[in-house]
């Protein structure tokens, strides 16, 4: 039994490890869209295996150990093969608006990565089914494995490249297979296959199988096509794979928003790509700031014209470009924050010489941390807080970030930054411009909202914006802009051939002089947003430019269903750039989850005998369906909410997933002891009370503790998740217990219906969060829980 328990632990660890690893890998080779899909397809694997075991239980039970060992072996094999195969599907996210085949490719990826989870779930499901007397110990091993797996894979990603971490997971599953296979009826043939597979993994994997095949349209791949470009350095962690590219023949010349009138050319630069995209550059610097003349000619230099030797905070240091911008333009001191310590290491150590020991300058202090957390815990006030371009132009233009939670650009975020400005200080945010405007107007709307929330009655007196042909720079002043400020802004814009988009009292005819748009879109939009009819403007505008908040932190989500038909019709007339396709991929993910769930979970059950009492199907079906939706709604909302607290989506996924698994499991085990007549109602009551408290308390807790060390924040997150997850683990087994007494034949259906609901809720929860916010998703989940309890009130 010990061997079996250990094997279960290993399989469970490998399964959740694989889930997290896939999110990482697919973010590298494609973009961010797959996180929800991976959660959904892992659940599909578990749901389908439940149906599979229910159908074949009589045949599988006599051969439990052999079947377990075989499933674990197939899990090990599938992890590697599906990793290789999945990357060979020619899915191109950028082509979805042009080519319907892309949706087929997306489905192919979904089905391929479903397979390993199916086999992993078979192992766990078989153990539950065939070793019923040891269910509590099996449960414990399963949950412990899940918790360990999440921690292990995150730890491994600090030391190993993702593809090497994959091999470790393959090894875990193979070990599990070997442990159980030893005493099985098929010991010899199993051993032979295990041995061959081990040899293959150790020495036989063909070259190229393990390499990550980045989309050819990602920035890194594009840069590597250029003559003489070469990868000079690579560093990897769960926060991202950093790739440094040298391009001596055709140098990087990153200078967004450079004036047409500039006579300066940027010096030599190294390109640093995060996960194959999001270009940041390290600029050659020898201590002579006069060689960086181009930094005086970019739109982002505007705030320096209004401030004398400012103390500056740069949020998002990247390769140090904005620090150089600050130094070149006369900053007296620069604090800079960067999330990824390896990025800081590149500038500080690896390329210290190239970067002119920039991070050792006496005026510069670089901190590792998340921007919001750093600002929240900082007691320093600055003359200027600057947020530069942290994403690449191509990524911004291609709409690949539309599902990306960004807590940097929210109303609460901007309020936090503004609270750290000295009197007369400036918050300056530069964004890429899309036309018709999206980012720039949304940011302006966020600025207005943040100022109003801070009690400013006339936000228009504190805002100014200029634009180059491809960037906009927004200024928010701590205090009203003076006539001298306005004159300086106008002078700066005119000298550099930039257009003013807004300043207090700006005449419309000034809005469209140097870089002429069809209309003075941004100025008109800014004026409308400041007016009394801002709400009407939001609703009439064909893109979603309503302010992003911590509850709906989707700054890059501009999609509106009302505009969908019109822009789709325009794509062949050059209107493809109007389509926010990232959201469509999420919708497609939801649709394919519904179809796959029906085909792989529910349809196979249809052939089973139905001998339960009349009325059971509808009521218990609803109960388990509602539970499936509600549980995942809470879990998904927590994953997205905890990104703010834990700084990175991957940390949030690992902590929330494993926290919910472990504590829901403990709650589930504890539920067997409940003796009350209708325990489900009390349990749901507890869930509603705790979750309701969290809706109000979590933002306060996050704000209070966001500045703590990652390890402390992870521990605190688990403490926060534990009580809610504990109670959320109970309604399902309580329902099963009722079924065992009254309608045992319905049990496979209960599993299947619950699994089906879970599969579709991963994408559905995100769709709802984007549309209505996390609070709405949580409230809906509570309503679903309450309805579920109501449906079985008299059972």
């Amino acid at each position, binding site marked *: 039994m010990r061997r079996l328990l250990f094997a279960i632990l290993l399989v469970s660890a490998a399964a959740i490890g694989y889930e997290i690893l896939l999110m990482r890998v697919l973010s590298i080779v494609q973009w961010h869209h797959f996180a929800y899909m991976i959660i959904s397809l892992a659940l599909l694997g578990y749901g389908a295996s439940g149906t599979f075991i229910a159908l074949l239980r009589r045949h599988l039970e006599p051969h439990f150990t052999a079947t377990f060992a075989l499933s674990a072996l197939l899990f090990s094999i599938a992890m590697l093969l599906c990793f290789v195969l999945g990357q060979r599907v020619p899915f*191109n996210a*950028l*082509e979805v*608006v*042009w080519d319907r085949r892309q949706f087929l490719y997306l489905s192919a990826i979904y089905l391929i990565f479903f397979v390993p989870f199916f086999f992993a779930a078979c192992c766990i499901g078989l153990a539950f089914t065939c070793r019923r007397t040891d269910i509590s110990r099996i449960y414990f091993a399963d949950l412990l494995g899940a918790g360990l797996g999440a921690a292990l894979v995150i730890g491994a990603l600090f030391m190993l490249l993702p593809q090497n971490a994959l091999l470790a997971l393959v090894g875990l599953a193979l070990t599990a297979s070997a442990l159980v296979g030893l005493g099985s009826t098929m010991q010899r043939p199993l051993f032979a296959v295990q041995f061959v597979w081990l040899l293959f993994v150790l020495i036989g994997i063909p070259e190229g199988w393990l390499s990550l095949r980045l989309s*050819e*349209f*990602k920035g890194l*791949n*594009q840069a590597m*096509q*250029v*003559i003489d470009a070469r990868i000079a350095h690579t560093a990897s962690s769960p926060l991202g794979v950093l790739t440094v590219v040298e391009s001596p*023949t*055709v*140098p990087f*010349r*990153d*200078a967004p*928003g*450079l004036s*047409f*009138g*500039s*006579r*300066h*050319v940027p010096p030599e630069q190294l390109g640093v790509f995060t996960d194959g995209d999001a270009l940041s550059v390290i600029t050659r610097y020898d201590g002579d700031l006069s060689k960086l003349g181009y930094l005086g000619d970019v739109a982002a230099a505007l705030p320096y014209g209004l401030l004398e030797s400012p103390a500056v905070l740069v949020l998002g240091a990247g390769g140090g470009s904005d620090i150089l911008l600050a130094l070149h333009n006369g900053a007296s001191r620069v604090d800079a924050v960067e999330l990824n310590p390896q990025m800081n290491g590149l500038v500080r150590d690896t390329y210290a010489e190239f970067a002119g020991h920039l991070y050792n300058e006496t005026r510069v202090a670089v901190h590792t941390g998340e921007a919001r957390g750093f600002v929240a815990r900082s007691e320093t006030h600055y003359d200027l807080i600057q947020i530069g371009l942290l994403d690449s*132009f*191509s*990524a911004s*233009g*291609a*709409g*690949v970030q539309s599902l990306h939670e960004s807590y940097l650009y929210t109303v609460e975020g901007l309020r936090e930054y503004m609270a750290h400005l000295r009197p007369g200080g400036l918050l300056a945010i530069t964004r890429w411009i899309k*036309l018709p*405007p999206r980012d720039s107007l949304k940011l302006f709307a966020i600025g207005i909202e943040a100022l109003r929330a801070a009690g400013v009655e006339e936000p228009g007196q504190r805002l100014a914006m200029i634009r180059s*042909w*491809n960037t906009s720079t927004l200024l928010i002043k701590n205090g009203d802009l003076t006539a001298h400020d306005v004159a300086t802004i106008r002078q700066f814009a005119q000298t550099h051939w930039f257009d003013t988009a807004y300043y207090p009292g700006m005449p419309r005819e000034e809005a469209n002089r*140097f*870089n*002429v*748009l*069809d209309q003075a*879109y941004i100025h008109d939009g800014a004026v409308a947003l400041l007016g009394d009819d801002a709400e009407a*403007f939001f609703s*009439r*505008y*064909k*893109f979603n430019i309503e302010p992003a908040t911590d509850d709906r932190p989707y700054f890059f989500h501009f999609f509106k269903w*009302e505009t969908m038909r019109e*822009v789709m019709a*325009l794509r*062949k*007339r*050059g*209107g*493809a*750039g*109007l*389509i926010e396709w990232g959201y469509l991929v999420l919708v497609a993910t939801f649709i394919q989850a519904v179809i796959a769930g029906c085909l792989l979970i529910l349809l196979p059950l249809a052939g089973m005998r139905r001998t339960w009492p009349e009325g059971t199907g509808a009521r218990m079906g609803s109960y388990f369906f509602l539970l499936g939706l509600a549980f995942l709604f809470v879990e998904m909302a927590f994953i997205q909410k905890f990104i703010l607290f834990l700084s990175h989506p991957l940390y949030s996924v690992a902590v929330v997933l494993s926290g919910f698994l472990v504590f829901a499991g403990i709650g589930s085990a504890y539920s067997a002891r409940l003796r009350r007549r209708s325990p489900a109602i009390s349990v749901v009551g507890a869930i509603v009370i705790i979750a309701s408290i969290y809706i109000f308390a979590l933002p306060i807790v996050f704000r209070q503790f966001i500045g703590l060390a990652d390890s402390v924040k992870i521990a605190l997150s688990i403490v926060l998740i534990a009580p809610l997850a504990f109670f959320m683990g109970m309604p399902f087994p309580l329902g099963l217990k009722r079924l065992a007494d009254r309608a045992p034949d319905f049990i496979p259906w209960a599993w299947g219906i619950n699994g089906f609901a879970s599969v579709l809720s991963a994408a559905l929860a995100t769709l709802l969060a984007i549309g209505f916010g996390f609070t709405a998703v949580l409230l809906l989940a509570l309503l679903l829980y309450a309805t579920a309890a109501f449906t079985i009130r008299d059972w």
Partner: protein
Amino acid sequence: MKVLILGLCLITCAAAAQDFAALRAELVEEVKYFAELDRGTRAGTFSDSVIRSLSTVERHKFVPQTELRSAYANRPLPIGHGQTISQPYIVALMTDLIAPEESDVVLEVGTGSGYQAAILAELVQHVYTIEIIEPLFSTATIRLDTLGYDNVTTRLGDGYYGWEQHAPFDAIIVTAAASHVPPPLIRQLKTGGRMVIPVGGRFMTQQLLLIEKTEQDEIITRQIAAVRFVPLTGEH
């Protein structure tokens, strides 16, 4: 037997060429139709010469074999190495924006498949085109040579500094994305010349940046929307 096979091949080729010609004619009609829908905007005024060039250049000879079936679809297509051949509608619009004349000398930065260069070559005296991706450069050079475009000169290298030796240019088309417009290119534009840069991600051009150098050597830039689209409802 050999004669029979050769004959069959020739018939097949001729039939395929005829198919492509018909598809090309359909594509041109579609482009004209869409342009007509945008009449009154800058996007809706393609000159006859641009349309003629679009009708003449065989796009199927510029796309990879795998994309042959979509050669005359009005959409961008991947051509390998992370690059695309632009949507024909956008090609027509870009070409039209530089208002090409027979005596013009044009610089293109980013040869890609060579399709845009071929379209221009039908309209102007000479096209100089620079590519930074070696395989694309080689393929495009051979392709343009084979198709008889002897008024196109290709070069492998960095387009940032333009092509000083042949400057100034009547027009410049920059198809490669950049974070800023290279100042040397602006300097190599003739007085009265025009430069066009498509803005946006691959497969989805957002708008076109048109840079004009006035007689007074002033720079005027315009963002040209490829399509009539009013961002507010109720303002069509």
